[in-house]
């Protein structure tokens, strides 16, 4: 399995010289199986860059198929949707899969609101030329997608829940735990540990530097340390710090990596836009 981070930034897309090495796009992660099956997690602004690449392939000819998993519908995780060009090509088949947000609106109604005529000239999902299906699942569900097996769980994110994923392909496991805050960074919840058990790579929310966390407790994000605790307890092989704060410049992320790596024997790195990585 290969993996590419197209967007690693949390909350807000950051442009400019201070964000070039790790990247300023909001969250989007592509997974590709050895057989070439593709799966996307989240539709932040990073997805618009992937879209350009996909349009050069079968997606440009209306023959692409893509499942997309959404961790949740906060804007930084869906703001690339209206600009993900494979949606505009008739014949592409794209599934958007996620949990219904709390509060009563379905996933589909939420995405319709995003594309409501006030906010977007697309005026609704029905105007996307591709075949698009919006599929809600209940967190805790496991399912198969071509080339991938996916297990899910709800994890707390401030006043709501996000969905975490354990994605298996080619005998390798990637765990996606973004936008999560545990009761304490040292007390990860059992469902998070279960998804991360023996994973080859854990991608974990690291929005806050450890020393900033006290000021931002309860906002729904983790300090870098939380991912370390998860990776250690779950015996994960590698940890990617993810969902970097919009205030974190490249130098600040370098520093977080150095400080965090000094706490643990688990190999770790800060997720960065760029090349395909072997899992």
């Amino acid at each position, binding site marked *: 399995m290969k993996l590419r981070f197209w967007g690693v*930034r949390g909350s*807000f897309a950051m442009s400019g010289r201070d964000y*070039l090495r790790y990247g300023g796009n909001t969250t989007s992660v592509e997974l590709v199986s050895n057989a070439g099956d593709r799966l996307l997690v989240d539709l932040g*602004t990073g997805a*618009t860059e992937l879209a350009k690449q996909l349009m050069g392939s079968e997606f440009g000819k209306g023959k692409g198929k893509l499942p997309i998993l959404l961790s949740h519908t906060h*804007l930084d995780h869906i*703001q690339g949707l209206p600009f993900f060009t494979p949606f505009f090509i008739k014949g592409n088949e794209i599934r958007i899969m996620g949990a219904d947000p709390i509060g009563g609106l379905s996933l589909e109604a939420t995405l319709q609101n995003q594309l409501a005529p006030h906010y977007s*000239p697309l005026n609704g999902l029905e105007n996307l030329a591709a075949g698009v299906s919006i599929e809600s699942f209940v967190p805790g569900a496991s399912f198969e997608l071509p080339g991938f097996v996916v297990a899910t769980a709800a994890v707390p994110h401030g006043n709501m829940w996000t969905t975490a994923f354990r994605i298996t392909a080619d005998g390798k496991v990637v765990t996606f735990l973004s936008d999560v805050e545990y009761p304490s960074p040292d007390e990860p919840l059992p469902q998070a540990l279960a998804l991360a058990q023996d994973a080859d790579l854990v991608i974990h929310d690291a929005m806050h530097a450890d020393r900033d966390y006290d000021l931002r407790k309860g906002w729904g994000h983790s300090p870098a340390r939380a991912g370390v605790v998860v990776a250690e307890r779950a015996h994960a092989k590698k940890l990617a710090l993810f969902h970097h704060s919009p205030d974190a410049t490249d130098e600040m992320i370098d520093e977080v990596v150095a400080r965090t790596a000094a706490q643990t024997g688990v190999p770790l790195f800060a997720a960065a836009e760029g090349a395909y990585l072997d899992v």
Partner: protein
Amino acid sequence: MQLTFWGVRGSYPVPGAATVRYGGQTSCVEVRSGSGECVIVDAGTGMRALGNKLAGEAGGQPRPYHVLLSHVHWDHIQGLPFFSPAYVPGTRISVYALVTAAEELNQVIGGITRHEFFPLPLESVPADFDFHQVEPGVDFTIGVFHISPIALNHPFGSVGYRIDADGVSWAYVADTAPFDQVLHKQHFLSGPEPLSAGDKTALDAMRAALVERLKGVDTVVYDTHFLPEEYARFPHYGHSTPDQALDICAEASVRRLVLYHHAPAHTDDQMDQIAASYLAKGATRGIEVLTSFEGMSIPVGVEEMIVEEPTHPGTGVHAIPQVPK
């Protein structure tokens, strides 16, 4: 009056090495009068950095802020929840926008902070918001600023603003399509639709009213999202080219055109070419063409401070006039 550009990009923010010089954040312009009064035009992602600057200036104290919206597409409102002065209790934020449908403005703008999209709903943000409906042709004032909303041609409606203060004037004309091929209404367009006689009349009237309002304006900031060959492919997207903006500005005898709302796909190198080519094109029509970039700050109506020698030797008085152009 001074204009500072905090976001110059259209559609969505584009981080990365290809946008470092012109900037990747979406529409937001800070307007300052000579006396320091401020209005903000559009609340795209550029508004986050502007908010951080204004919060620093305010030193933690609540201040009133005024935000004029051209329309409520995401790229023009998405910075509002990240405007840090909104989190200082006692702050008042007045939002001015076009009402295009039955919903109230507070519902439309509040809708972007529904809990599905953002952790904190607008009604829980410490600042107090008030909402003001604008109507094309109905002028109003905010402090020293005299503001004239102008109807534009964009899906679901959009307004430009002519803003006069300090004896000078400029106008914000975004987002808008040109006024010939497509009349934007309140439904989805998958391509250009045939124009009825009534549509053509409406377009002509909209164009004439825009040109009329731009007469005597020093600087026009215009939606020039597309190059001509791009516009030819997407005439129904609701955006213009620099050539179309130049035509309007020439008719209205505008001194200076600022290219704005750059397509997200335009790299810095392409923007350099666009800037050079339209600087030359503008010169042939007597219009100075500037290409906006994030961080650009320009005075309106005053090219530069000029220090003249005393004209009457012996008076000892050095005149330091600001020269309107």
